[in-house]
């Protein structure tokens, strides 16, 4: 019993060191967002942009698309997420050209094309706000699993509220739905994933 103790002690410390190393490594090279294994083709859509013209998701093939669903009179989640994304855009510096943020509405009645476009651009000139009729938007919501419902009971100063799911979707340059993040994911994680994803691409 006495003789074996040093081996036991050494074994434990080694095991813990290995485990710590494993956690460190798996942290560094893996993607932090929730990964779609295997990546599934992102639902392609045509929605109305600020100038009334049609914007096609496919136009952004070859660039990373950050897709977020919200609405202009949204009190809390949407503005904070868009603010985070605008800070992210600044930190991307040279990679910013190959990343595009799309902001699709869940409140077509009130979010007319110019209203949502100017709202998105207020956060960052490169952001594109998209809207459309209910029939155009419903399939988009469904395919991205966006849950939305109008709460009539709790009216606020901005009229009725729309409660909606708050996931942020990352579409890779090949047009596949690759990662998704929950609300409140720190900006550095998204930045880390984008750098990892773009570095894999041949320059």
């Amino acid at each position, binding site marked *: *019993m*006495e003789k074996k*103790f040093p081996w*036991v*002690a050494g074994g*434990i*410390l080694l*095991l*813990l060191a290995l*485990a*710590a190393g494993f*956690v*460190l490594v798996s942290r560094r090279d893996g993607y932090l967002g929730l990964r779609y294994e295997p990546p599934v083709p992102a639902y392609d859509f045509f929605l109305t942009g600020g100038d009334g013209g049609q914007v096609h998701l496919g136009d952004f093939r070859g660039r990373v698309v950050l897709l977020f669903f919200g609405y202009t009179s949204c009190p809390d989640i949407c503005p904070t997420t868009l603010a985070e994304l605008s800070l992210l855009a600044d930190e991307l510096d040279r990679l910013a050209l190959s990343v595009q943020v799309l902001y699709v509405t869940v409140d077509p009645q009130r979010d007319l094309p110019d209203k949502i476009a100017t709202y998105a651009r207020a956060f960052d000139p490169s952001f594109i706000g998209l809207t459309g009729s209910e029939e155009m938007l419903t399939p988009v919501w469904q395919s991205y699993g966006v849950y939305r419902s109008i709460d009539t009971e709790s009216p606020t100063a901005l009229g009725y509220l729309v409660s909606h799911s708050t996931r942020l979707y990352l579409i890779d340059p090949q047009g596949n739905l690759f990662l998704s993040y929950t609300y409140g994911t720190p900006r550095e994680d998204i930045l880390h994933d984008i750098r990892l994803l773009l570095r894999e691409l041949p320059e």
Partner: protein
Amino acid sequence: MKANKTNNPLRLGLWVFLLLALLTAVEFAFALWFGSWLLLLLAALAKAGLVLVYYMHIAKLFKVDESIDRESYGYKLATNRLGLWLFMVSDSFIFGGLMLSRLNLMGLTRPELDQALGLGVTSLLLVSSFFMNRAETSLAGGDRRAFLASAFITILLGIGFIIGVLGVEWQLAPFGPGDGPQGTVFYSMTGFHAFHVFTGIVFLVIIFRNGLRGRYSVEKHWAVEACAVYWHFVDVVWIFFYPALYLIGTVVP
């Protein structure tokens, strides 16, 4: 260096204590820099394994001589040991239930607690575990005076732990028993554990008093062994409760 009978196990007890202390520090570091619950679990399992093997002598449970006379002290001793371990398996289901409730109610968030105080009471319990082992090993080696001294120190440290938790921590905690899940989780887990520390102290006082009266000999001291194993069991419970309350995940205000 003449390795006589008594100081060999004593030295082992010391080494085990030092490793446990080191692992607690490692655990603290894991929480600060990695914040991964998996590492905390591994560290806790390692510490628990050490206590089970070296302090609680779990191996004795399986080294049993069936052939000796059924009425002999040795045979009854092995049966008593089995009974104690069955009791501890049963009692651990209560603490398992508390841990699952903690995870269900708070997930990977933890209550806002004073880290220094947490580390303080944990080291109190760890040191008491060392002295408990020293008491039992000294008695088994025939050194009655060292047994009595170590047992007394263990009692003091145990009382210190209870004062630390109930006296200090419960008063300083920024939430009451009824304030949200933190209150529920914190007070129920530390309460159930403190009760078991209290019964451990009662057990210690009894064996100390009988030890004073010379009731225990090198061959026959089952009560002391039982008290030691129970005390280490209560320490193992805290080995899992401490990270679950103080180290894991993110603080919820």
